[in-house]
């Protein structure tokens, strides 16, 4: 090997051969000995300092010994110090030098050999060195290693077990710079490493048990990981297969307990660094696959990773149990978004293509998909569909079908939506109708384009005969009968939410309420807000008070509700002005119970005489009634149909005999308290007029 055929460079910087018949100091005593003090030797594969060889003939076979103070070998072995090879029985011929039962002592960075057993056979003509040795106990391992070294390279066959992985990682002998610190685990390795060909070949069967590791910030870590696999290196790079069956791992943002989730199988083929890539840690792989517990399969092809992000490749997924995979894989990605507290079920498969670090095309299919928000804001069941998107142009048709859904307590569906995704937008292909309660919401035309200024929306649609009874029940209001309908010619979206043009007509209590200026914000957020203005036209008070179970009031009611802001379906701000209309007010009567309830709600207490007197009558005529309220937060500044000199205001102005007026004294009304009292009255716990 070192006497090379001209291909190797060998330099003997100092060679002082010394023949002596007496032992030199420090060498074993011998009959005849030959000592060669080579000094320094520089070779392509090593660099030895203070190299000395000693051959002695004590018994029938010569004894051979080599020492070097310092030997530099190729990485990952590096510098070896205190080298001493002692061969008690050497077989020397013209061609061979064989050592049986040799002992090797040396130390390096993180390892040390003390008289480790070694056999070797050096064939000088073939320029090859065969060696075999029991594993010297390095890194607490055991097993056997053998091989052959020659001018062409090195082949090592090994079969090792019980290797202490933290010790091995600390030794610096691993050819890779580990991005994590290994703090526990043992490994078994069996196979060969062969560098004699044009490309190095590695074929190793590996298994680990109790593996624990972590990066400095603890974002990539594992505990008690056990598994097995195979590592091979050939012309295409590395091929890796691994299957982990025990332990737990956290790879931000995913946590996986294999005992609960099931085994994970990973494979990568043709993994290799990317030559001439601007980032040194860039790698590419012909394909990669990850399978979780038999229900989730991720496959990638043509992958190029810059070290920070996936730059190119095609990723396919197939998930048979979204209820299991969703919790482990999908939910951690959605934390902090509107879907961050959702539970999924169903099946999905699809494909995503990336290049230059950006998504270029996507197809996805799903069936039996269910989604349920933990906070009950929305949900859907029985969804099936497919979507296709490409950044190069209009993709093929997409469709979504939903068997049933729910938005803020409102049941919706079933419906089907056919649409086409554009690079930065969406276009509805067929009119869409979403059944809501007894009616529904229809969309005749919809197109969304996400421009530099934000989303641009084209919309034409309407609301068809929505049942008010179920709507009010769903949002927790007093139950009203009637319908809600309207045409929505346009919809806008900006920082203040979704603004709906057009008017919605609510037919209720034999009158109507015209809604306009509708704006919805944060529908699925922490605080959904709805802004609207309303014109109230001739509601029949008899029906209204019956619905509220308030006591009977006959007459009509008209007015306006300006700038109404509902937060979580409760009013937070409004300018309310409702009164009996001047024209055609109709028959106007107010029942004794209604008067009592009005008094109770107002917190007023009638005098005993007045109360006794009132009980003589079932109902009273009135001339007009009305209530104005400027609500801001919890405070309503109230007024009625008339002002009185004493600063009070008239809520109900009596007419005829006996005449009864309902007077308001408190202009600053606590709105939540008012609502609480109204509910108390409705629930039948009415305060009795005393």
């Amino acid at each position, binding site marked *: 090997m070192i006497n090379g055929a001209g291909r190797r460079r060998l330099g003997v910087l100092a060679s002082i051969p010394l023949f002596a018949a007496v032992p030199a100091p420090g060498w074993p005593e011998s009959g005849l000995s030959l000592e060669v003090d080579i000094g320094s030797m520089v070779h392509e594969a090593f660099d030895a300092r203070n190299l000395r060889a000693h051959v002695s003939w004590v018994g029938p076979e010569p004894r051979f010994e080599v020492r070097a103070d310092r030997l530099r070998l190729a990485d990952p072995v590096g510098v070896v110090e205190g080298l001493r090879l002692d061969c008690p029985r050497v077989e020397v011929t013209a061609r061979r030098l064989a050592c049986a039962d040799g002992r090797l002592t040396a130390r390096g960075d993180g390892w040390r050999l003390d008289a480790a057993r070694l056999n070797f056979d050096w064939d000088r003509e073939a320029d090859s060195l065969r060696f075999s040795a029991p594993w010297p106990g390095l890194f607490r391992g055991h097993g056997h290693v053998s091989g052959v070294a020659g001018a062409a390279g090195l082949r090592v066959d090994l079969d090792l077990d019980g290797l202490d992985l933290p010790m091995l990682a600390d030794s610096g002998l691993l050819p890779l710079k580990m991005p994590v610190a290994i703090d526990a685990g043992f490994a078994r390795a069996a196979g060969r490493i062969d560098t004699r060909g044009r490309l190095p070949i590695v074929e190793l069967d590996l298994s680990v048990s109790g593996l624990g590791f972590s990066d400095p910030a*603890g*974002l990539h*870590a*594992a*505990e008690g990981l056990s598994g097995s696999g195979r590592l091979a290196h050939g012309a295409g790079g590395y091929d890796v297969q691994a299957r982990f069956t025990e332990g737990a791992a956290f790879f931000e943002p995913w946590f996986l307990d294999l005992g609960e989730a099931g085994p994970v199988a990973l494979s990568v083929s043709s993994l290799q660094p990317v030559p001439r890539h601007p980032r040194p840690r860039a790698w590419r792989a012909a394909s990669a696959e990850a399978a979780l517990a038999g229900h989730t399969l991720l496959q990638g092809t043509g992958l190029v990773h810059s070290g920070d992000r996936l730059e190119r490749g095609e990723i396919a997924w197939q998930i048979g149990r979204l209820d299991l995979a969703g919790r482990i894989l999908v939910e951690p990605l959605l934390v902090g978004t509107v879907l961050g507290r959702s539970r999924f079920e169903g099946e999905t498969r699809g494909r995503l293509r990336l290049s230059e670090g950006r998504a270029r095309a996507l197809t996805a299919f799903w069936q039996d998909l269910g989604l349920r928000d933990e906070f009950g804001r929305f949900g859907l069941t029985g969804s099936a569909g497919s979507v296709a998107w490409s950044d190069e142009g209009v993709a093929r048709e997409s469709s979504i079908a939903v068997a049933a859904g729910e938005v803020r307590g409102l049941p919706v569906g079933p419906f089907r939506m056919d649409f086409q995704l554009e690079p930065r937008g969406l276009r509805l292909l067929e009119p869409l109708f979403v059944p809501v309660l007894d009616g529904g919401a229809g969309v005749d035309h919809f197109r969304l384009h996400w421009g530099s200024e934000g989303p641009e929306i084209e919309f034409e649609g309407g609301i068809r005969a929505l049942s008010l009874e179920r709507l009010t029940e769903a949002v927790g209001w007093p139950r009203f009968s009637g319908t809600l309908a309207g045409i929505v010619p346009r919809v806008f979206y900006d920082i*203040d939410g979704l603004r709906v043009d057009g008017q919605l007509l609510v037919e209720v209590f034999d009158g109507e309420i015209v809604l306009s200026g509708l704006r919805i914000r944060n529908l699925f957020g*922490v605080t959904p807000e709805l802004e609207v203005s309303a014109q109230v036209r001739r509601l029949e008070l008899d029906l209204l008070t019956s619905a509220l179970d308030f006591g009977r009031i006959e007459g009509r009611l008209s007015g306006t509700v300006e700038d109404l802001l509902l*937060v979580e379906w409760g009013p937070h701000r409004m300018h309310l002005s409702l009164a009996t209309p001047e024209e055609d007010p109709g028959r106007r009567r107010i029942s004794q119970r209604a008067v009592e309830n009005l008094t109770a709600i107002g917190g007023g207490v009638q005098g005993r005489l007045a109360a006794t007197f009132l009980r003589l009558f079932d109902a009273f005529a009135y001339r007009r009634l009305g209530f104005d309220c400027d609500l801001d937060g919890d405070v309503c500044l109230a007024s009625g149909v008339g002002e009185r000199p004493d600063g009070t205001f008239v809520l109900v102005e009596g007419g005829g005999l006996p005449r009864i007026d309902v007077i308001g004294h408190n202009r600053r009304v606590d709105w939540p308290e008012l609502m609480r009292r109204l509910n108390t009255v409705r629930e039948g716990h009415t305060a009795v007029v005393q």
Partner: protein
Amino acid sequence: MRDLSRMFAILVVVLVASACVTIHIYFPAAAAEEAARTIVRDVLEAPDAKPPNEPDAGPEPTSRGITPLIMPAVAWGLDRLVAPASAQTPDLRAESPAINRLRASMRSRSAELVPYLRSGAIGFARDGFVEVRDLSDVPLRERSRVQRLVNEENADRRALYQEIARANDRPDWEDQIRETFARVWVEEAPSGYWYQDGNGNWRQK
């Protein structure tokens, strides 16, 4: 003489018409800081007291509007006559249903975050958000929970900064509000908490 008077009158009209009245729109830094401190203390469950040596930050002009290089004298006069916006008490609206809900949400999460803030697993980042600093001492099984808490807290904080800007009809104030909060979170953090300095390095308070 009449022509001269007319010319003078025209000149005055032209000067008045062409004068650019400087309009300053200020970010109410002091009010924002006060609002931020109230909210931060509420979330951190600290008593709402004014801290010692609190800088009396004045309003900072954000150079909105048009400022001519040479302001004509008449415009200068107009500017003096019409009180500029800076003369008004700078104010910041920091209450709305959405803001209150976000505060409540953050307050209810605070007890869960505190152990990790104390241990240094997470800290206050220089951009007004919470960031994972070192999870290595957190049990493996808890790490995704910490990550979830951090992400949900940051979603609330992002929404809070947006909502305060929106409550003041100034969406463009969001960054300044966030920067104010970033400073106040650190100032109000109890001793032992970790935070990022201006260079992004972690320091312990």
